[in-house]
Structures are given as C-alpha cells and as structure tokens.
C-alpha cells in the first residue's frame, strides 16, 4: 500500500514528507541541538550530498560541522571513530554501504569493540549511515545488503528504517545514542513520501532503537520485514486481504538489537511466519529470525515451518528482467504466504 499524494483521511496536521526530507530534518535538528555533532563523508558539504540528504546543511553550519572528505573510506572512517573516542558525535556517511567494506575494520575493530576492550571506559558515539542494498540497475558491486554482516557483531547497533517516520526518528535516536550505530537506508525510498503525524514532526521525536512496529494487524500469518520490502509486504497483504487472508505486517526497524518478542507474540497469534528481506538467504536476517523463533515459546504455536523470502543467491545482474527476478517481489511474498498456509 503505497502512500499517495493528495487529500487523504488522516490525523489532523499530518503531512506528506519524503524519506530524504525526513533524514535532512533529523540531521538539521541534531546539528542544531548539540554542537558536538558533525557530518563527514564524500560530497556531503558543497555538493549537498550525493543523494541530497544533506542539502542546505553546509550552507547553514559551515566547514567545521559538515566536512567533505577525499575518497578514502578507511582513512576517514578511522578519523571519525577517533573523533568519537574523544566525545565528538560524528555522523559518518558512506556513499553506499558497498564502500563501507573498505572501512569495515574501523567499524568493527575500532568502533564496535572498543567499549568492551576498555571495560567501559571509552565510548564511541558514532553513526555510520548511507544507502544499503539493491538500487536499480547499478549491478553487482553496488547492490549488496549489509544487514547480516553488521547485525552479526556485538557492540554495534544496527537500524533499518522504512518510512519517513522511521528514518527521522531512528536517525535522531542513533545520533543521541552513545554507541556506534549503523543505519541502513535505502536509495529507492529516498524519494517516497510518507505521512508524518504531528508528533513525528516535533524536534524531539525519537523512534527507540530495538523496538519493532506492527504496521498492519492480522490473524492468519505474520510477515516480518525491514526496509523497502516492508512496503512490498503491505502490498501483498492488500492483495491477500481480498482473498480473505489477513496478514500481520511487522516492520523490524532494528536489526540489532532485534525485537524478537514482537515477532513471537505475533506468531503465537497467527501460527504462521514468513520473513522478507532484500539480502542474500544464507546467514541472513530471516535465518536469524527463524532460529530464534525455534528457540522460543512461539515454536509450539507454528502450524507450519517458517518460510524465508530473500534476494536471489547470486551477485546482482544488470539487465532489468534479471534484476527484477533477483529481489523479492510482491508475487513472491504472496506465493510464500499461500505455501505456508497450505493454500
């Protein structure tokens, strides 16, 4: 169910805001609120951001707070982590998370582990953010999803917003968190408008890290997802509703810590589980959800094995027909639901 522009029946004073604008607002508000917050990355300042997320911020805050870096991921990520160890609060942008692989040692070994190794004497209040996962036609080296990679590591927090409310609230929460947070955005969502309530528009609106949101309630099957596929789940749910199948759609919002309790409560109610993600299947987010469901009370309430819908287990091809069949589509979700319901 894609939110549409124009007149809607909605709460008073709610407005349509794109994910891009929501992120921009979050950065603006946090830069204003705390002078230790600063943004660095490639093209974030004078270019207004490769994807225009930081539009207008360099003009407003200047060179000290919004810093253009050379193309040196390992170097500038390490510099950002070092600055965080002395209690600056950097927001380190990766133009896409594919490039974070060059800097991943600094994210894991320098940022994630330092609080533990120092027995809690050094905190690293840094946010790593940028677009993650598949885009459109950018091929294998620019389409990887890193949710499982970063979600694997203790010491990190990992969040994955879907809606504008998610994006703004999670970015603000991440910046205010005293720990390293990886925020996995999605390029294809940047231009998508979502309704933002009056409450969500406030300068202190936070979405707590580690809590999932039930986007749509249902009784027959639980659909769990994160990022863009949440939208696909809602579309699938709308189609299935016409056939009398009521899906409960859960937006994970956080990969680590993961709110498995919300998923468990839902499975206890619906007795069926389908996980949906853009990343590869092996060792993925869905695999983790299934393992945890097996270990918990919800296992006894499953009437059928849980099913995973994921990206295809190949590097991303370029040709449109191939690419389209490498990402989970609405039809794939519908098929999986019917399989698990044995329809």
């Amino acid at each position, binding site marked *: 169910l894609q939110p549409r522009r124009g007149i809607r029946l909605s709460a008073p004073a709610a407005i349509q805001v794109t994910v891009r604008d929501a992120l921009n607002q979050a950065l603006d508000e946090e830069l204003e609120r705390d002078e230790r917050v600063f943004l660095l990355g490639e093209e974030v300042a004078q270019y207004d951001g490769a994807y225009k997320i930081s539009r207008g911020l360099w003009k407003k805050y200047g060179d000290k707070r919004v810093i253009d870096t*050379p193309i040196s991921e390992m*170097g500038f990520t390490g510099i950002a982590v*070092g600055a965080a160890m002395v209690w600056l609060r950097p927001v380190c942008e990766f133009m896409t998370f594919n490039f974070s692989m060059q800097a991943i040692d600094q994210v894991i070994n320098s940022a994630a582990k330092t*609080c533990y*190794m120092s027995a809690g004497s050094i905190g690293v209040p840094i946010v790593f953010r940028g677009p993650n996962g598949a885009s459109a036609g950018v091929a294998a080296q620019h389409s990887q999803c890193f949710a499982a990679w970063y979600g694997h590591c203790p010491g990190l*927090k990992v969040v994955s917003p879907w809606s504008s409310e998610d994006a703004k609230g999670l970015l603000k929460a991440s910046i205010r968190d005293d720990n390293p947070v990886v925020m996995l955005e999605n390029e294809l969502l940047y231009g998508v408008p979502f309704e933002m309530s009056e409450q969500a528009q406030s300068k202190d609106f936070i979405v707590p890290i580690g809590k999932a949101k039930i986007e749509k309630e249902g009784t027959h099957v639980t659909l769990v997802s994160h990022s863009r596929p949440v939208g696909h789940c809602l579309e699938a749910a709308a189609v299935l509703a016409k056939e009398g199948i009521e899906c409960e759609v859960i937006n994970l919002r956080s990969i680590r810590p993961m709110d498995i309790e919300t998923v468990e409560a839902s499975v206890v109610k619906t007795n069926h589980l389908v996980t949906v993600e853009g990343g590869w299947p092996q060792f993925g987010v869905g695999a983790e959800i299934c393992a945890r469901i097996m270990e918990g009370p919800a296992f006894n309430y499953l009437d059928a094995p849980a099913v995973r819908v994921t990206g295809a287990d190949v590097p991303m091809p370029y040709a449109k027909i191939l690419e389209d069949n490498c990402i989970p589509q609405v039809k794939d979700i519908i098929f999986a639901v019917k399989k698990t319901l044995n329809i």
Partner: protein
Amino acid sequence: MRKMLLAALSRVLQGPAGATVAAAGRTASRVMVASRNYADFASEATFEIKKCDLHRLEEGPSTTAVMTRDEGLHYYKTMQTIRRMELKSDQLYKQKIIRGFCHLYDGQEACCVGLEAAIKPTDHVITAYRAHGFTYARGVPVREILAELTGRKGGCVKGKGGSMHMYTKNFYGGNGIVGAQVPLGAGIALACKYFGKNEICLTLYGDGAANQGQIFETYNMAALWKLPCIFICENNRYGMGTSVERAAASTDYYKRGDFIPGLRVDGMDVLCVREAAKFAAEHCRSGKGPILMELQTYRYHGHSMSDPGISYRTREEIQEVRSKSDPITLLKDRMVNNNLASIEELKEIDVAVRKEIEEAAQFATTDPEPPLEELGNHIYFNEPPFEVRGPNQWIRYKSVS
C-alpha cells in the same frame, strides 16, 4: 641537616607508583653513609645531542639539551621500570601465566619516556600493540599493567583487554590491527582542533605499519585539514621477521609523509627524542598542521614472545646495540659523567624498581580472575542493563555498562 637531606633523597626515590617514604628513608640513610652529599651534585647539565635529519623543514630541533638532575633521575627510573617490567613479563609468559600475544618494548624505552617528557598530560597518545611502555608512561601503575597481562580483575581494564588493549585517560591503547590506530589518532587530533583547547595527539606506528594504505590516506587528510597530529614512526628495523630493506621501497620513513614535514631522530637517546618532540609539538600547536617523526630505535626481544628474534637478525647485532646504544646505559653514563648522580644512587633506584616489579608481579599472580558475570558487561556505553546470549540459548549473561 640530616633530616633535610633524607627528605630530599626520599622525594627523589619516589616515582609514579610511589615507594613508601619509610623504605626510601632507610635506603636513603644507607646511601648517605656510602657516598657523596646531595650538595655535591650539579643541579643540571647541558648535553650535545645528535642533529636530526630534516624533510621540508628549514630548521630542526636544538642540538643541545639541558637536563636537570631531577629530570634525569625521573627518566632513569621510568626507563628502568619499563625495562624490568618487560623482562618480568617475559618471565611470566614463559611460565604460561601470561597468554596470547605479548609484544615487549625493552630497548625502546627512550621513545616513550622522551615523548612523554615533551608533552602535557592533557595531550593525547595512541599507539599499536607494543604498548606497555606507553601505558606506564601515561600513568597506569605497573601492578595494573601486569595484572592485565595475567588477565585478573585488578588489571587496568579488568582483564577484558589484555596486552594489546590497555587504556587510561588520554591514552587510547593498545590497538591490535596494524595501522588502524593512525586514522584514529588523526581523528583524535581533529577533535582537539574542534574543541580548540590547544591539545595535540601523538599517533604512533612501526616501520611495518608504515606501508599501510590507510596511513597515506590519513597523511592526506591531516595535511589538508591541518590537524594537530604528530605522526611518529618507531622504526626498530624489523616488521616482525621482515627487515625494513625487504619491506619498503623507501626506508626514509620520515620522508614518507611527502608533503608533511619530517624529522629523523635518534630514538635511543631520551634527550634527542624529547627535544624533537618538543619541536614537533610546537609545530602542531602553532596551527601549522601535522608533522612526522621517525624514531630510530631497536627492540631486544623478538616481535612477540612467540618469536625468538634470531632467525632474521644475528645475536651479534643485538649484542652490539645493547653494548653501544642501550638507552638506559646512555643516560646513566651521561648522569654520572656530568655529576648529576652517583653510581650508588642509581643502583639504589634499581633496587627500588626491582622491588616494585616483584610486588606488582606478586599482585598480578595472586589477584583473582574477573568474575564470570563480567563476561557480558561493557558491550554498550551508558545503556540500561540487558541480556547477552552465551554458548547456548539457556546461558544468559547480564550486560551492564
């Protein structure tokens, strides 16, 4: 008169870890009878030190250094403490009381002591894994260093870090990944500049790490943004088993910063290191941006305790450095020959140091290991308590910050 002299001597014999006044008093009285009076020593002396090789610099550090008696005794005691602490670590490792990696600093003492003498406690230091000397120089007591090596709860980071991950105020380790500490150090320097408190960051790495790509990325950004960062290459001639000639197309490490001015310094002379570091610190504090120092030094031990250190270099070479360039011997000769101290006095310091190390080792071998509950703690900073999974789903640990 006697009381005054005793008091003066006991002040001198106290170091960062603090010997008891009573003990110092007893030793002081023995010294008093056996040797010259306090009033016989010079209060300071001036020394000629080696000229530094310069890169993109018109002038370098001074070629003379003034050292007071107090400074000399302090440098001597600190270097001797580090020396004996490292040798004790060697012993404990061979007894299997220290496990894992253990990279010893003996031979390189003049580097950390000279650097610390040139900077303020409010400045920042970050280095790699050969870090025990810096950890001590930055203020962590020997007993907490040894207890960290033996993995006890009295260790400076409660046994969570070990040899390569020791921290204290304004000292950021202790880093295990070769070269990764260099961008971190530049980031600390960025924060120094950001906060505007005239602090600088000493960012150390070895001759092996000097070939890491991230270091060159860091040179570029530090110079571009004029970060108050002193890059310091401790060149001990070998990156593990690989000599500098086999690893680097250019072994002029002080020039490898290209557009960054550089100094090559005799790292076995504590005064040379101190004067060069003072010069470099002034350069950074005046807003000129980063500077690079190469300290030519030597490690007596192998790369780590797993490396005997003689397959890639000769015993003769090691022996030659020990006899001709040992930093502690160099300082001792200078002090004695210039009437800054007596041999007996320095021997008394040796005795006090050995005692301190023994007591610290005793603590490090008897202090209990951290409680199992510690396993889950400190995952996050400033976080409400939560549960952490153990080796199976039924084993849970509480995690507090």
